[in-house]
C-alpha cells in the first residue's frame, strides 16, 4: 500500500511534466491543426536556458524559471513567424514536415553550441534538497515544486483562456478562423500568442526536469515530446482538459508499469496506449465526434 502511494507520488511528478508539454501540443493543434513536432525541443531549450541561468549566472531557481519561460516564449513566436506562417495556406503535410525540420534544427544547433555531452544542474539550493515523510511515503521538495508550479501554471492558463479577451479570441479562432477574422479578430496575432503560451509552458517543464533529474542533453526533448503528444491524443487533441488528463494518465501508467512490471516496458505501454486510443476512440477520451462539414 505504501509502495503504491509512493509510486503514485512519483507518477504525479512525472505526469505534471508531460501535462505541461502536452498543453502546448494541444493548444497549437486546436488552433491551426498542426502537430508541432518542434515542441519537445522548445522544452529542451528551456532546460538549457535554466541551466545557463543557474550554473553560469548563479541566479536563483525562480528567476531562472521565469527567464527560461520568457526565452521560450520568444523562441515559440519566432518559430511560428519564420517557419509556419509562410505555410499557412499550404497543405497540412507540408507544415508537418517543416515542424520536423525545425525540431532537427533546434536539436543540432544546440548540439553545435553546447556539445552532445550531458550537463548537470550542479548543487541546488538546500531548500530544494529537502524531503518529507508522510506515513511511509517519501515526498521530495522537488516533487512538490514540480506539481505546485505545474498546477499554478495550469490555473493561470485556464484564467487566460476563459476570462481574458485574448483567450476569447483563441477560442474563436480555434472554432472557425474565417468567422473570427470577419469579427475583427487578428488571427495571426492570436496564433502567435498561442505559440507563445505553449512554448512558455514547455520552457517551464524543461527547467523543472533539469532540476528533477539533474541531467540535460540536446536530444532530451525527443522522447518526452512524443509521450506528451500521446498524452494530448489520449485526452483528445485540441482540448486543454484532455491534455491535463492525458499527461497525468501517461505519467501514472509509466510509473506503475516500471514499479510492478519492468522499466523496460514503459515506452512500449505508452505507445500501445496511443494505438488503442487511435483505434477505439480517435477523438480521445474527452473528444466528441464532430461531423465533418462538406
Amino acid at each position, binding site marked *: 500500500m505504501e509502495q503504491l502511494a509512493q*509510486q503514485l507520488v512519483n507518477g504525479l511528478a512525472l505526469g505534471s511534466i508531460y501535462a505541461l508539454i502536452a498543453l502546448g501540443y494541444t493548444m497549437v493543434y486546436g488552433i491551426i491543426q498542426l502537430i508541432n513536432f518542434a515542441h519537445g525541443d522548445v522544452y529542451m531549450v528551456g532546460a538549457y536556458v535554466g541551466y545557463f541561468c543557474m550554473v553560469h549566472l548563479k541566479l536563483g531557481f525562480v528567476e531562472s524559471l521565469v527567464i527560461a519561460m520568457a526565452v521560450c516564449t520568444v523562441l515559440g513566436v519566432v518559430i511560428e513567424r519564420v517557419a509556419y506562417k509562410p505555410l499557412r495556406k499550404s497543405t497540412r503535410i507540408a507544415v508537418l514536415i517543416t515542424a520536423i525540420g525545425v525540431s532537427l534544427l533546434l536539436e543540432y544547433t544546440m548540439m553545435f553550441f553546447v556539445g552532445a555531452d550531458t550537463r548537470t544542474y550542479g548543487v541546488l539550493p538546500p531548500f530544494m534538497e529537502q524531503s518529507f515523510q508522510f506515513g511511509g511515503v517519501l515526498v521530495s521538495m522537488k516533487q512538490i515544486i514540480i506539481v505546485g508550479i505545474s498546477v499554478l501554471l495550469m490555473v493561470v492558463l485556464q484564467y487566460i483562456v476563459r476570462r481574458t479577451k485574448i483567450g476569447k479570441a483563441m477560442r474563436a479562432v480555434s472554432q472557425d478562423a474565417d468567422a473570427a477574422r470577419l469579427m475583427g479578430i487578428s488571427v495571426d496575432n492570436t496564433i502567435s500568442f498561442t505559440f507563445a503560451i505553449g512554448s512558455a509552458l514547455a520552457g517551464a517543464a524543461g527547467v523543472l526536469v533539469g532540476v528533477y533529474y539533474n541531467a540535460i542533453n540536446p536530444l532530451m526533448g525527443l522522447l518526452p515530446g512524443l509521450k506528451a503528444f500521446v498524452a494530448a491524443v489520449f485526452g483528445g487533441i485540441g482540448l486543454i482538459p484532455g491534455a491535463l488528463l492525458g499527461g497525468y494518465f501517461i505519467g501514472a501508467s509509466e510509473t*506503475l508499469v516500471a514499479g510492478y512490471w519492468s522499466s*523496460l516496458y514503459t515506452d512500449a505501454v505508452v505507445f500501445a496506449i496511443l494505438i488503442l486510443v487511435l483505434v477505439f476512440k480517435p477523438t480521445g477520451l474527452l473528444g466528441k465526434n464532430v461531423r465533418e462539414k462538406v
Partner: protein
Amino acid sequence: MKRILTGLAAATVGLAMLAGCSGGGNGQAQAPAGDTINIGVNFELSGDVATYGQANVQGIEMAAEEINAAGGVDGKQINLIKYDTKSDTAEATTLATKLMTQDKVVAVIGPATSGATKATLPVAGQNKIPVISPSATADDVTVDDKGVKEYAFRTCYSDSFQGTAAAEYAVKKFSAKKAVILRDSSNDYSKGLADAFRTTFTEGGGEIVSEDAYAKAADNFNAVMTKFKGQEFDVIYLPGYYTEAGKAIKQARDLGITQPILGGDGFDSPVLGEQAGAQLKDVYFTNHYSSEDQDPKVQEFITAFKAKHNTDPNAFNALGYDTMKFVADAVGRASEQTGEGVQKALAETKDFEGVTGTFSVDENHNAVKAVVFVGYDQGGALVSEKG
C-alpha cells in the same frame, strides 16, 4: 521520423569528418615520409560515451609524446592519426576502414567501448591490421564461437571477470546474502557484468531477489527504486554507464535506499559525481587502476599526467597510456613493420609492466591482471583496495 534523424546525423558527422580530415592531413605533412610509424586512434571524442574516449586519448597522446621524446621506436617517430566516432558504432567502422586503407596505419587503437570495437573487427581481419582497445571489456571482443579473433587485442580484463569480482566483493565486504540487479538493456557490457555477477552470487549461496533493466538514456529511476525499496536486500548491483548510473544513484538515495551500490568500470567518470552530487555515498566499483596506488611507476605517471592536464588521471587515462606503450613495445619487437608483424608481436607479449599492473597476453588475447575496487564510503570519501 527516426530515419530522417539518422540521415541528418550522418550528414552532420560527414561534414565534421571532412573538417577532421583536413586537420589530420596537416599533422602528417610535418613529418618526413618513411621516418614515421602511423598508428590510428579511433575514439569516441564526442557523444554519449565521450568521457571514455577523450580520457583514453589523453593517455595515448601522453605516452606517444614520451616515446617520441625518447627517440621513438627504432629511431622512427610515432605519428598518431586521430578520428572521432561520435560514439556511433557505424561511424567507428567507417573510420577504422579509412585508417587501414587510406592512412596506412600498422595498428588501430580504439574505440573505447565494446560494441564499437567489435564492429571494427571484421575490417581489421580483412586488412590484417590489429585493433587494440584500451577498455572494451565484453567477453566476446577477443573471442567468439570460432575461437580467438586474430586481430583483436585489449589491455583491460573482461566483463565476466569484473562481474565475478564484484559478486565476491559483495559477499566478502558486505556479507551480502540478497542482492538486486538493475542493468542497462541497451548494451552487452551491462548484460555481461550482470550475468557474471548473478552466476557467482547465486553459486556462493546468495539470492537475487529482484532484477530489472532500463532503456538507454533513461531519466526516471524513481519507480524502479521504489519497487526495490519494498524488498529486503543487502546490496544493489548496477552495472551501467555513468550517464544513467549517476541519476539512478541519486534517485535511490533520495528515496531513502541506504544499501551499498556496486558497479563496474563504467562508473569511472567525474560526471557520476556531478549527477549524484552529495548522494554519492557507499558506492563501490571494479576498476583497472587507482590513483591511490603507491607503486613508483604509477606515482611517476600520476605526476606527469598532473603536470600536463592539471587533474588526477582516471582508469581510462591509465589504460590509454598503457595501450600506447604496449603497442609501441610490440612495434619495436615486430619482425616487420606491417599489421601482420605487429599482430604477432602483440600476441607474444609477456610481463609487460604498465601503470594498470603487469600483464601478459593470454591465448584469448586478454590482458591477465588484477582488479582494483574504487569507491566512495559512507562519508563520500574516495577509497580503494586491490582485489
